[in-house]
């Protein structure tokens, strides 16, 4: 069950972040970083509030949110699985791995599973080419993978 992130408490935290940054030049970026942390994503309702408070057009905020990959419009799962699709991982067979995870978790790349547990992401090179192909689940790193390793990893979470 996905919990309601758009609650009063979170909006109060957002307001505090806005107040703290309001008079700074380029206040939008730090506020968006805070918003992403507070809500786990930056949906329409949150962008609207930021737009009104900072007097920045909604289209501009949406433009920034969709430009930077650290901001997301939809909430992310409890576990974020990042499969590296950098060159080394890709040639070592990252694609079948990502397909397998997608199948097991019922999650498409870039999306979150219906139960809110997993988010599946294809990442750029994460700098662990020696371990290729590699994936991360939140802070955990798994390397030198083959497709057969995947069910066990997914089961752990």
């Amino acid at each position, binding site marked *: 069950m996905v919990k309601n992130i758009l609650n009063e408490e979170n909006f109060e935290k957002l307001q505090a972040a806005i107040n703290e940054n309001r008079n700074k030049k380029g206040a939008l970026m730090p506020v968006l970083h805070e918003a992403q942390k507070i809500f786990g994503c930056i949906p329409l309702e949150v962008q609207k509030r930021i737009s009104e408070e900072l007097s920045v057009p909604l*289209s*501009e905020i949406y433009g920034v949110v969709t430009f930077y990959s650290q901001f997301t419009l939809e909430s992310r799962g409890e576990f974020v699985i990042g499969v590296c699709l950098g060159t080394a991982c890709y040639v070592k067979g990252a694609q079948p791995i990502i397909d397998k995870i997608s199948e097991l978790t019922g999650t498409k790349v870039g999306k979150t599973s219906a139960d809110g547990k997993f988010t599946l992401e294809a990442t750029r090179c994460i700098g662990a080419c020696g371990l290729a192909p590699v994936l991360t689940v939140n802070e955990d790193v798994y390397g030198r993978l083959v497709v057969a390793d995947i069910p066990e990893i997914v089961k752990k979470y």
Partner: protein
Amino acid sequence: MDKITLTIDNIKVEVPSNYTVLEAAKTAGVDVPTLCYMKKVNEIGACRVCVVEVEGNRNLQASCVFPVAEGMVVKTNTKKVREARKATVELILSNHNRECLTCARNKSCELQSLSEELNISSVPFVGERTETTIDQESPSIVRDSSKCILCGRCVNVCKNVQGIGILDFTNRGFETEVSPAFGKSMKDAPCIYCGQCIVACPVAALREKEDIERVWDAIEDKDLHVVVQTAPAVRAALGEEFGHPIGTRVTGKMVAALKRLGFDKVFDTNYAADLTIMEEGHELLHRIQEGGVLPLITSCSPGWVRYCEFNYPEFLPNLSSCKSPHQMMGAVVKSYYAEKHNIDPKKIFVVSVMPCTSKKSESARPELAVKGMKDVDAVLTTRELAKMIKQARIDFNRLEDAEFDPALGHYTGAGVIFGATGGVMEAALRTVAEVLEGKSIEAIDYHMVRGVEGIKEAEVTVGGKTIKLAVAHGTAMAAKLLDMIKSGEKQYHFVEIMGCSGGCVTGGGQPHVPAKVKMDCDIRIERAKALYEEDTQMQYRKSHENPLIKEIYDNFLGKPNSHKAHELLHTHYTARDKY
């Protein structure tokens, strides 16, 4: 400003030290191509079409943002420059929907002209295309991303000149799309439909929603009595579509063309502008004398009205309850005119030719109707009228001047100047001053409210009373003025606001003028001159002196702001939520 000397293509030229290389080239008579550049609106060096070689610089420089320096040596026509420009435009074209033959901007497209000028004969880059969106849901504006070249002109005109920011770059890289937030339709964003994005767009990525076919069908329908009216600003710009210089007034030819197109009657919105002055002028007098809500703010510009509804709902009681002139005209045609000429109003089809795209949305407002009949049935922009004239193969320049149909075609100089910023204010003053003074006034040129300064202020003393006035054009300027009124910093009796910078003459429905031409021609000033010129030539220059206006009050409406006038000529407004 200090002057510096530089050399461009072996030509020595002296220019102010704050010039860009592009401006210096212009001074030297050297033509550098541009695409994303739009003077004072979009100077971002994004498209790289204006690149030049600057001696001592390893890379080519975007001349539109590169500052001049003493002794600089610039070359604009080398092999390196030509090849770079060509490759840049070829890359743009590789991801552009090249359906030029059937495009709304065929022959008025800046990208098309540029391709021809750069001698581009093929597009060598074949490959993937960005996914595209066509948004046709709004009553005024169509957004077609398959044509968009991501120059950012619309983004910056909307954000900075209008202070709204409906459009922006979304996503990144190959997926970049200029769009409203969350990919919403323009209809679901707080867009005021001013169409400034359309006149900024070099291609057809933004264009008006055409109503041409519906109007042709109405003309064809023998059962319908089709009445057309033209706004003042149309005559100041239509000629451009037929090769006339900017600022040429083509009133007589325009009327002749409309008659040739087959409209049953050709009326002038100026007549209704005179009517507006009678209603609005008396509304002002009433509010001043009876202690009503002040300042009274004009309501002729539907873009401004929408802006107010979205952004400053607290000022809605200040808005004049007067309908905009073309809506008044529609209401009068379907009541007074229909009655007088014994025509069934249900069989009357009113077409408005407007310099404005927001008028399309305005005419669809449900409250702008009387007895279930819409005041206005179709709105065409000046550009659409030009298309119809071309389609009908009318040789516009050889037409003999014709006169508006007399039933509702007489107007005053006051009505004509409605099309320029400050014009509604000046027209109102000409009438209000006489009412307050109780006698005829000779000095009726109110120069202090003319011109293109963003906010103009004036005080006039009439009948022993000082009236404080302000005029703003472009909604960013309107916001600035309203904020000052809200904070109590400024107090006025009467405020004129028009949604577009320059007023209707530079509305979103006016003929396209390439950014290149706008670089050294302020079209707001040139087109306004045409209207002020017509004003001086009119027999009557004050709205209340228009014989037809006297007639409609004597025979039909009673007096200004009467019950009947309210029923037909006044309206109300609604606060609207953004998104």
